[in-house]
């Protein structure tokens, strides 16, 4: 066990965990933010997606010891115009079914629009295929990202 200071959503949290603990479990079990989900634990499904200094990472494949002073953003701390547009579009298209993967989907989609405000279908494939949805809500995820991109055009 070792003490780490994690900066999550603009706040500092002290956690005392084994250094090899995946960031995912520190966020969920130690900090108590549960919007970030566990789906596979092996970076295959994307349900645990958070931002590390603004870049998407799978929090299951990053040990707490490797976080350092980087700023972590989870779905609870997601802000910005892309995030607002994505979440509104998610509701307008009734994207979620079971909903369990959707935190990760929203995190990936907002990150995509931040880097590429007008993604093509292929851009969406390349950015979003790391997020598995077992309900296969993919048709609506795609449509909602296009809608969000439109609203960002203003």
């Amino acid at each position: 066990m070792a003490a780490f200071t994690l900066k999550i959503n603009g706040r500092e949290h002290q956690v005392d965990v084994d250094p090899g603990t995946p960031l995912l479990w520190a966020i969920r079990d130690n900090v108590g933010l549960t919007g970030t989900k566990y789906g596979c634990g092996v970076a295959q499904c994307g349900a645990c997606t958070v931002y590390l200094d603004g870049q998407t990472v799978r929090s299951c494949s990053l040990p707490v010891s490797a976080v350092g002073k980087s700023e972590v953003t989870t779905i609870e701390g997601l802000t910005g115009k892309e995030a607002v547009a994505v979440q509104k579009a998610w509701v307008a298209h009734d994207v979620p079914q079971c909903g369990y993967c959707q935190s990760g989907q929203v995190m990936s989609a907002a990150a995509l629009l931040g880097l590429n405000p007008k993604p093509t279908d292929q851009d969406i494939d390349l950015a979003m295929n790391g997020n598995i949805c077992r309900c296969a809500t993919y048709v609506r995820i795609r449509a909602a990202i296009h809608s969000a991109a439109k609203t960002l055009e203003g």
Partner: protein
Amino acid sequence: MSLVRTGTMALLAGSLVAIAIATYPGLRRADAAPEASRVAGSLKPVADFGGIKDKNERAVALFEEAGKVLQSPRCMNCHPAGDRPTQTDRMIPHQPLVVRGEAGMGAPGGLACTTCHHEANFDAARVPGNPKWQLAPIEMAWQGRSLGQICSQIKDPKLNGGKTMAQLVHHMAEDELVGWGWTPGAGRTPAPGSQKQFGELIKAWADAGAACPKG
């Protein structure tokens, strides 16, 4: 009565399946590609090649030995001929779908290598990592190439990132991403031998005139 039997057990359909397998590699049955052993192979030391009198022949033999490393899945997986890396000892297409992108780090706005791969291997999630983790540029594609073609590419400064032979030898012997091939993390067969041995083979090959295998 005309009797047409179909199904995988029948001769006719069996031949159709054979055609399908030949045409579409994706249709291989699971048991056609058993998981390779995870025990690393070995490399012959440079001294073993001293007996080859002809300099060019010696260089070729040395490169062929070093080629066991270059053509191991650990190296080949990230030297794809297309945009997409492969993974595992079976060299299946990387899942999820990732592409090289301009900097070899993923498509802009798409999945970056660093979304999953970090500074070090993380066996708890079975995800390999290295500070320099990235895909080789397309001009350094090795998959689908013969060892002779790979050899020619490697020593051509236009295709090897502008490296002189000395820089190339140093890269092979010292580079940490190259070195990852021998410490690839749980569940992956390391490249044969050691980076030190590999570096010595490459240096000896260069010293012998860097001739390439034919073909």
